[in-house]
Every structure is written in structure tokens, then in C-alpha cells.
């Protein structure tokens, strides 16, 4: 029997959002088909214009008040790359030069020229340079100095500090490990005890918190899971608890909330949605059978019951994974038989097998397209909130994940009805561990493993 007391703050806030979202959906469903098609269109030109303007305003006027500027570069550049658009070569050059000015002579990138190096801004700067691609961008990173910066940020607990004397949390671990992996400077010294720290952050709910004891949170869960995969210790997590927690973060609106009983927010389309991309990847690299499509719930009528070509795949992948003969799945903490972690990020599955996403991809796409899009360009948290570059980046990243959620192989072309709205809504695939566009990752990987 439901409680008869008046609604609590949580219930009231939730109800307000539901009303807004459902009224939007109702309006949509009552529209004629031609209007519906328009509403489901990704407003590419407007988004690109909004984004490019944001990058330009950054360009010449180097105002040192902002400590987040590499982030703004990344959010904008990544969003543009997702839409398979390009930045004007002059603007590109200016950006590379600007990021170089954010680089500390002793390694790492700060929030702006003259600022202390910081792991988060380092992550943003490196991801920006990888997204830009090309020799000039990729070679501009001083990897030796960056490695020593990371070593200094390493704490005895296994975690990393964001900056000299800064806070330690799961986000710092992810930014460090992700960058080190991408630049091919990840080693046992950096990896040591990181797994222990992250493990201590998995909560009773199943998700992962920022620090031990804090609440399970989408952002930190993504960071924690990605890090554990990158250091090859993901089996230490209670994955079934984690999955059970994250599937319930998707709400009636179709979008994801960051924490239990909090409000939906477009950016969690990536932080929470991306977790499924990681898990999907995990299931295939571990050689587990991919989930065969059921008959009733078949979201892909063109394909009959398809199982992954898992036997052939398994063999190929296990061969890639085991650089070291003595490696076994259980042997995670023994550094001597550690799998070459440089290869972890690189393994993509072979073949065009199909899987069933564990989350509701179409519902999330509907939320992103109908609720998060600002028709004048940019994307936002939820209706009623303003657009910003951060939400633009993560809503689009989430959309990309959704569109490819039925594919085992990120590279394969999605089937038409995997994409909500016109097929032109299709975005570039990302590498879910780093959240950079896949072919930019591939270029960077080649560059940093050969040099």
C-alpha cells in the first residue's frame, strides 16, 4: 500500500520533470509524421555552428581567468568530430598552439597558460590533440615529462592526486590511466594499487563512488570501470552488481540519472550509457558468447537468430590478449605475468556479430533527440536548462554509443533502425574507453606505438 503522506522533495522534483518530458513526448506523438521526422533530426548545422563559435571565441583572446579551457577544446572538438565535421585549419593550428601553451615544462597540462598541471585538464588536452590528429598535434605532447608528472601525482593508496597537493578520487585515476594508455606510457609503476583503490569505491548499490564510502555515481562508475579494464583488473569488480545498478539508472523519460532517485540528465547518456559499451566490449574480448537475439524482442527483424561468431572471434582475441604465455584470467595481481596493457585498449572485436544492448537504446535516443536538443544548436541536461558545450559533448557521445549498441564491432555500419530518426543522424563511432572518435584513436595508437 502506497504511503499516504504528501510527496517528498525527491518525489516532487521527479514529478515535475516527468510532467515536462511527457508533455513534450505527447506533443510529439500528436504531430503529423512530417513534423515528427523533423523533431527527430539531429540539427547538425546548428550544432556545428554553436560549437565552432565556441572554439573561435577561445582562439585569439587568451583570457587567463578560466581554469578549464582544455576541457572546452575537447568538448567542442570531440562533438565536431562525432558529426564527422572538420575544423578550419587555421583554427586547428591555433588550438594546437594554445594547448602547447597550457603544457607545463615539467609535464602535464594546466587549465590555461601559466597554470599548474592538472590530470583532468591533461586528459582534456591529450584527447583534444588526438581528436585533431596529424603529426603536429600528436608530436606536440612531451610524453617523458608527462610520465614523470603522473608519477608525482601517484599516491601510496594507489590512487592519483589531480594536481600537486590536490584531491584523490576515481576521476583522477581514470584521467591518468586513460592518458597513459593512449600515449603508450602506461607501466606497472603507474598501475600499482590502482585496482585496490577503485575496488574500495564500489558501493553496496553496485555502482562506483568518487571516494571510498561516497554514493554510487554515474560519472565515477564510468571512470572506475574504464580504469579497471585498462589495467586488466576488471574481474575484481562485482560486475553483475554493477550492471544491475546501472540498468536501473535509466528512467521513464528514457534518459539516465546519475544516482538513485535523482533526476535525469543528458550528460549521463554517455557516463551511464557508455558503461554498456564497455561491458559489451568486455563480453567479446573475454570470449563469452554474445547475447543471441531473442525472437519476441527482436529489435532487428532483418537478421534471423544470430549468435556471435564467437568461436573464431574468441581464438583471435585470446591470441591478441595473451602476449605472455603464463597469463591466465585469474592472474591479475601478479605483475610478472601481466598482460601487455598497451594492447587492452586496442583490441577490437572481429566480425560483424550482433548483440542485444542491455539498456534501452531507442528510449535513450528519443530522450537525447527530443529533450536534450536545443533546436538553435547545442544540447542540454534536460528541458528548461540551457545548452552548454559539456552537455553537447556528452549527449552526442551517448547518442553515438546508442546507435552502435547492437553491434559487437564498433566499426561496422549500424542497421537503419538502430538509428532513431533519419539515418543521417548517424554519428562517428567512439572508442568507449577514452571517448575519442575511433579512427582518431587508431591514428594516435599507431603514432604512439611506433615512435
Amino acid at each position: 500500500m502506497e504511503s499516504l503522506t504528501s510527496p517528498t522533495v525527491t518525489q516532487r522534483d521527479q514529478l515535475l520533470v516527468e510532467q515536462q518530458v511527457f508533455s513534450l513526448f505527447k506533443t510529439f506523438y500528436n504531430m503529423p509524421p512530417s513534423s515528427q521526422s523533423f523533431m527527430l533530426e539531429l540539427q547538425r548545422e546548428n550544432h556545428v555552428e554553436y560549437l565552432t563559435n565556441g572554439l573561435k571565441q577561445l582562439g585569439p583572446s587568451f583570457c587567463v581567468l578560466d581554469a578549464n579551457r582544455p576541457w572546452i577544446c575537447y568538448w567542442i572538438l570531440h562533438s565536431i568530430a562525432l558529426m564527422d565535421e572538420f575544423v578550419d585549419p587555421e583554427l586547428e593550428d591555433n588550438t594546437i598552439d594554445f594547448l602547447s601553451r597550457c603544457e607545463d615544462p615539467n609535464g602535464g597540462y594546466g587549465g590555461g597558460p601559466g597554470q599548474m598541471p592538472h590530470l583532468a585538464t591533461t586528459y582534456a588536452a591529450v584527447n583534444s590533440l588526438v581528436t585533431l590528429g596529424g603529426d603536429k598535434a600528436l608530436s606536440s605532447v612531451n610524453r617523458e615529462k608527462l610520465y614523470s608528472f603522473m608519477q608525482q601525482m601517484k599516491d601510496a593508496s594507489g590512487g592519483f592526486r589531480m594536481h600537486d597537493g590536490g584531491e584523490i578520487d576515481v576521476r583522477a585515476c581514470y584521467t591518468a590511466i586513460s592518458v597513459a594508455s593512449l600515449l603508450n606510457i602506461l607501466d606497472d609503476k603507474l598501475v600499482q594499487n590502482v585496482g585496490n583503490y577503485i575496488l574500495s569505491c564500489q558501493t553496496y548499490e553496485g555502482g562506483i563512488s568518487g571516494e571510498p564510502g561516497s554514493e554510487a555515481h554515474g560519472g565515477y562508475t564510468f571512470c572506475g570501470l574504464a580504469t579497471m579494464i585498462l589495467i586488466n583488473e576488471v574481474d575484481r569488480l562485482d560486475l553483475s552488481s554493477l550492471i544491475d545498478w546501472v540498468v536501473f539508472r535509466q528512467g521513464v523519460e528514457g534518459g539516465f540519472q546519475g544516482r538513485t532517485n535523482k533526476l535525469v540528465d543528458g550528460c549521463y547518456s554517455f557516463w551511464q550509457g557508455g558503461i554498456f559499451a564497455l561491458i559489451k566490449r568486455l563480453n567479446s574480448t573475454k570470449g563469452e558468447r554474445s547475447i543471441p537475439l531473442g525472437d519476441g524482442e527482436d529489435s532487428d527483424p532483418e537478421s534471423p537468430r544470430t549468435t556471435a561468431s564467437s568461436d573464431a572471434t574468441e581464438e583471435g582475441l585470446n591470441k591478441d590478449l595473451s602476449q605472455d604465455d603464463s597469463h591466465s584470467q585469474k592472474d591479475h595481481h601478479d605483475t610478472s605475468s601481466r598482460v601487455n596493457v598497451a594492447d587492452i585498449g586496442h583490441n577490437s572485436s572481429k566480425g560483424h556479430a550482433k548483440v542485444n544492448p542491455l539498456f534501452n537504446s531507442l528510449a535513450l535516443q528519443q530522450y537525447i533527440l527530443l529533450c536534450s536538443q536545443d533546436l538553435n544548436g547545442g544540447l542540454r541536461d534536460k528541458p528548461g536548462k540551457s545548452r552548454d558545450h559539456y552537455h553537447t559533448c556528452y549527449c552526442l557521445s551517448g547518442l553515438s554509443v546508442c546507435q552502435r549498441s547492437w553491434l559487437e564491432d564498433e566499426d561496422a555500419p549500424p542497421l537503419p533502425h538502430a538509428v532513431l530518426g533519419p539515418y543521417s543522424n548517424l554519428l562517428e563511432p567512439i572508442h568507449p574507453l577514452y571517448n575519442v572518435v575511433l579512427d582518431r584513436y587508431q591514428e594516435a595508437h599507431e603514432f604512439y606505438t611506433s615512435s
Partner: protein
Amino acid sequence: MDYFRAIYKADERSPRALRLTRRAIHLNPGNYTVWHFRRLVLEALNTDLDEELDFIQRIANSNSKNYQLWHHRRWVIERLGSNARAKELHLIKSILSLDVKNYHAWSHRQWVLQALGGWEDELDYCQQLLEQDIFNNSAWNQRYFVVTRSPFLGGLIAVRASEVRYSVEAIVANPNNECPWRYLRGLYKDDIESLVNDREISSVCLKPSQEFRDAVVALWTSDTHPLDADLATAICDILEHVDSLRASYWIWRKNKLPIAA
């Protein structure tokens, strides 16, 4: 900011430098470099840190979600020690009264409790918050933190029975509230056997009695597909339909069920 950069480069740790960092922080509270340098200056000048807390508080009024601020607070409190404890716990409470799920505030509160103590009233505080809003997951999380780590409660096993009772009451009052369900599972983390055998819990959800089975069967509305004989499978089938947003997940769960004997 140019002045700041000059002083920072020169590494001048003077009262002038301190004043400059204050101004720079007002202009941009997100500038972690300035906060870091301020700490160096505070140390060098051996300044009164109680005043520093007031300063942070004034910045916090419009920036309660700023990482740097909270980190700086931690640094100050670390140096002030347990004398600062009561005032700090009180301050965090007042910030939470404005924004009861503020992530930084809760993390900071946990840090203060672990570093300086003050556990005695914490369970009551959680209780209070949950009475105001039983859907507040931050409060449930804090409750879990307290019952598992407070040196005064004897550890999880000691409080488990009463916590189970509390969770079950919460479930019965609002079965659609996810918090107490997860909390309940959390109480039996790594000990599924005990969870399944706990009579209080079965009374609420688990006992596969005939009555329960009848209720499950009643939810099944398909005429064409008979309900699976195995209860767990049947439940997955039902959930696939009544929780259709997660249909994929329930299919996956069903496929992972151990083969019925």
C-alpha cells in the same frame, strides 16, 4: 591576474600575496593554481586558519559544487584538528539543508567523521533526513557508511537485524522506492545465503509460497505462452513485460539463470 602570475612566478609568500590570492579566488573560484598557492602562503605566514574557514564559507555561498573549495576546506580542517570538528559537522549540515544531496558535502562529511570522529549523532542525523524524505539516496548511503564504520555501533553484523527491520518498514511504506531494496541487499553483501534465510525479508518478497506463486501467475497475461514452471524463469518473463524498458536486461538475466534441477 597578471599580478597574481607575477607573484606566483616569483614565489612570493607575503601578506600581499595572500590578499592577491583572495582577489583572484573571488574572480574565479575554479582556479586551482591560485588555491594551491594560497595554501603555500598560508603555511609560510602561519595564518589563523579559523578565519580561513570563514573566508571559504563566503565563497561557498555561491559555489557549493566547486571541487577546489572543498579540497581547501579539508586542508584547513586537517590542520585545525578535532577542535574544528563540531563546527565543521554543523556547517556541512547547514549546506545540506539547502542542497541535501550535494555530493561534495557528503564526501567531506565522511572525511571529517573518519579523520576527526563525531560519529555519535550521525545515525540520528540519517534518521532525521530519511524521515523528511525516504527517497533520499544520499541519506541511505550515509546510513550504510555509519552502520558499517562507526566505532560505536559494533559493526554490520551487530546492527543487521535492526537495519533489516528498518529497511523492510521503508519498503512496505513505498515499495517503489529503490533505496531500501538496495540497502537490504547491501546489508547482506557477500552473504546471499543469510539474506535468503532471513525471515523478515522473505515475509516481504522472497518466500516462494503457493500464495506468492499464485500472485506471480496472476500477473502473467499471455494466453499463448504458458508460464514457465521454474519460478525464477517465470519471474524474468513477467518482468520482461511489466518492466519493458529493461526487457533486454531481463532476457539476459533469464539466460544466466542456473539450469533448473
